[in-house]
């Protein structure tokens, strides 16, 4: 309820108070003219810590990864004009992966808006297509409620980044401060519980399945439903696959886990996806990198149940039979109840059919689609990731950049728990890895945070090595240095007649010296036998950032691979070449 004592505060004070009320620990940001009053207020308090990045893109990535790795909400703060445009890549990255995040931006004073003022840009216009919602605050009396709405919208329903654009004069104007406890909006009421009739239908289908498959995505992680997912999959004895965004929702080491599916998914996951008769899709959006050619996917008949909180994710690319619009944990709780009752009555999936299905799956598994040459004299990138998994005992938070290294990390590091695998799937943003590691490390102070990257990606937000130094972030950077934009090179090899147009990374820096230049230490590792010792040494250095530059096979490719436009079973395998 209303505070007894009413306080009159400036807009800048209100911003900081709102963040405090929301329990915000960190703000990732970069100052500038339009936000100076807000910075002034940050200076005067010590409840919120400001993390000064070296480029606004990194502020957004760090705030984003702070959310991804913790289920708290990351906040970033940038100035008007170039501050905003620099942050756009980070905002779009969060948007594509449905990550809750608050972006506070300075704006020129209200009277200057539209005058082509210094450092003016149409922030609301520029960011509109890559935020869940955005606001321009035109009256200081709306400021607190707008920030409350921003947190509410960002974290409920299908999450996403929400931006609040605050003109400079608003930060100096005063009004009574009142932070609403809760907010209701007639135009925004995300559903929670799924339709009971649909849930019943779904459970019935699952019980009748002979070749079932559970396919889950980022939604399970975003909604903290991995507990229920495990219980469901275990109760039913069904196989389970995760998308790139869903890794860790189901234990990567469990026998019922078939690995990731999709363009670089495992043979068994893609085959089971194509040949199942009942598919349960949970918080996954049938992305083109997952389903490949939808017409090919549709060639095999199967019943599809799809749970998603966003109706527009359902039947977008693939028609489904039983849509369930709802919040995953609520829906799964309901399904588990119905299942328990059915099992009590002796209704269960046909054990013989299930056994046959598992026999088939094990045959597919026996292909060992992730095998690679273990006898090579040159370091294989897959080997580094296997060793990383061993040395960290699967307990690290792994952030990644974009490219081959990202796919190998997804394939070879087995995530048993959610929020450990932090990567940009939807936008595929090179440069994400290092700032993401900063956000993840700050959200999980004691944890081992590893950034798996490539020599090309790391150069896109390299300046953040300086931020890591300032805040003593003991991140371990695993640079899989193949001297190429490997993923681009791979496509050029397969689909462009080996014409490696502009994918060779010439004039690479000496990464060890570079790390040292920033006050960190680095190691260059060139022989397979040095991989494990180097990893052990680096990981033992709990308080230091260590840059591990692994010189890896420049010719290695990611397998399996489904070429663009092909069906998911039309995989190129290592053995085919």
């Amino acid at each position: 309820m209303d505070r007894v004592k009413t306080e009159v505060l400036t807009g800048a004070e209100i911003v900081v108070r709102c963040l405090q009320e929301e329990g915000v620990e960190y703000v990732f940001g970069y100052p500038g003219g339009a936000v100076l009053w807000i910075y002034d207020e940050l200076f005067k308090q010590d409840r919120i810590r400001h993390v000064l990045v070296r480029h606004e893109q990194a502020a957004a990535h760090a705030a984003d990864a702070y959310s991804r790795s913790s289920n708290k909400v990351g906040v970033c703060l940038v100035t008007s004009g170039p501050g905003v445009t620099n942050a756009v890549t980070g905002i779009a990255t969060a948007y594509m992966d449905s990550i809750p995040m608050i972006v506070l931006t300075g704006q020129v004073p209200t009277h200057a808006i539209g005058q082509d003022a210094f450092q003016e840009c149409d922030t609301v216009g520029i960011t509109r297509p890559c935020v869940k919602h955005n606001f321009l605050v035109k009256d200081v009396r709306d400021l607190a409620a707008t920030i409350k709405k921003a947190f509410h919208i960002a974290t409920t329903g299908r999450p996403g980044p929400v931006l609040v654009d605050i003109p400079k004069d608003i930060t100096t104007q005063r009004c009574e401060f009142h932070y609403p406890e809760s907010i209701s909006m007639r135009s925004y009421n995300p559903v929670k519980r799924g339709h009971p009739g649909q849930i019943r239908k779904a459970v019935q289908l699952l019980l009748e399945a002979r070749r079932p498959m559970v396919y889950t995505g980022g939604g399970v992680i975003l909604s903290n439903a991995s507990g229920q997912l495990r219980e469901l999959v275990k109760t039913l004895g069904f196989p389970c696959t995760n998308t790139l965004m869903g890794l860790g929702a189901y234990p990567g080491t469990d026998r019922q886990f078939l690995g990731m599916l999709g363009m670089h998914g495992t043979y068994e996951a893609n085959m089971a996806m194509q040949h199942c008769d009942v598919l349960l899709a949970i918080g996954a959006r049938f992305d083109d990198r997952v389903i490949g050619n939808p017409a090919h996917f549709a060639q095999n008949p199967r019943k599809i149940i799809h749970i998603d909180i966003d109706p527009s994710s359902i039947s977008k690319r693939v028609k489904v039979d039983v849509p369930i619009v709802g919040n995953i944990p609520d829906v799964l709780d309901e399904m588990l109840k119905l299942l328990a009752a059915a099992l009590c009555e002796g209704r269960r999936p046909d054990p013989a059919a299930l056994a046959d299905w598992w026999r088939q799956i094990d045959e597919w598994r026996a292909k060992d689609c992730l095998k690679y040459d273990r006898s090579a004299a040159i370091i294989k990138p897959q080997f580094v990731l296997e060793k990383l998994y061993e040395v960290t005992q699967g307990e690290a938070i792994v952030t990644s950049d974009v490219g081959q290294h990202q796919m190998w990390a997804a394939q070879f590091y087995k995530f048993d728990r959610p929020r450990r695998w932090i990567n940009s799937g939807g936008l595929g943003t090179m440069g994400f890895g290092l700032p993401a590691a900063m956000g993840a490390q700050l959200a999980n102070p004691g944890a081992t945070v590893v950034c798996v990257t490539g020599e090309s990606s790391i150069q896109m937000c390299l300046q953040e090595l300086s931020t890591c130094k300032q805040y003593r972030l003991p991140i371990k950077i695993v640079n899989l240095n193949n001297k190429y934009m490997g993923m681009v090179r791979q496509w050029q090899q397969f689909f462009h007649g080996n014409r490696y147009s502009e994918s060779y990374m010439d004039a690479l820096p000496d990464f060890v010296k570079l790390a040292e230049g920033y006050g960190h230490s680095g190691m260059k590792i060139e022989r397979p036998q040095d991989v494990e010792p180097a990893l052990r040494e680096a990981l033992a250095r709990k308080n230091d950032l260590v840059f591990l530059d692994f010189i890896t096979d420049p010719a290695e490719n990611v397998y399996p691979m489904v070429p663009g436009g092909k069906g998911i079973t039309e995989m190129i395998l290592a053995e085919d070449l």
Partner: protein
Amino acid sequence: MRHIISILVENEAGALSRIAGLFSARGYNIESLTVAPTEDASLSRMTIVTSGSDDVIEQITKQLNKLIEVVKVVDLSEAEHIERELMLIKVRAGPREREEMKRMADIFRGRIIDVSDNSYTIELTGDGAKLDAFIRALEPGVIMETVRTGTSGIGRGNRILRA
């Protein structure tokens, strides 16, 4: 298939560009778009005429519903409805054409709302097809200027869209 989508939306700056932006970003087509506040000043009502397969129309309504400021969306063309569009058309009406123009306006139940020495301005309401028919019925050379509001629509009988 042509569809008429009716949208109740918070009457806030930016809501229109959010909706227009959605259509252009996702490649949906807009045949016409009209918008004005309702009797409740906090709400605007928008009518968008679009076309697309059933799948596309389903996505359009889902995507519109997802916009934070959108309160309600209906596809009017799913059931009985009435649609109207207003056209103002300025035509040449010198001594030779005057009689004929008046007659044409009457046939289409148009009203002449402004007159000069050599022109009439005619107001005409109806569905889009009727307005098109009127334009086709005129000699091509006589049209000096046209302006159309785009289609507005409402459900028949007890079919009501409100917040």
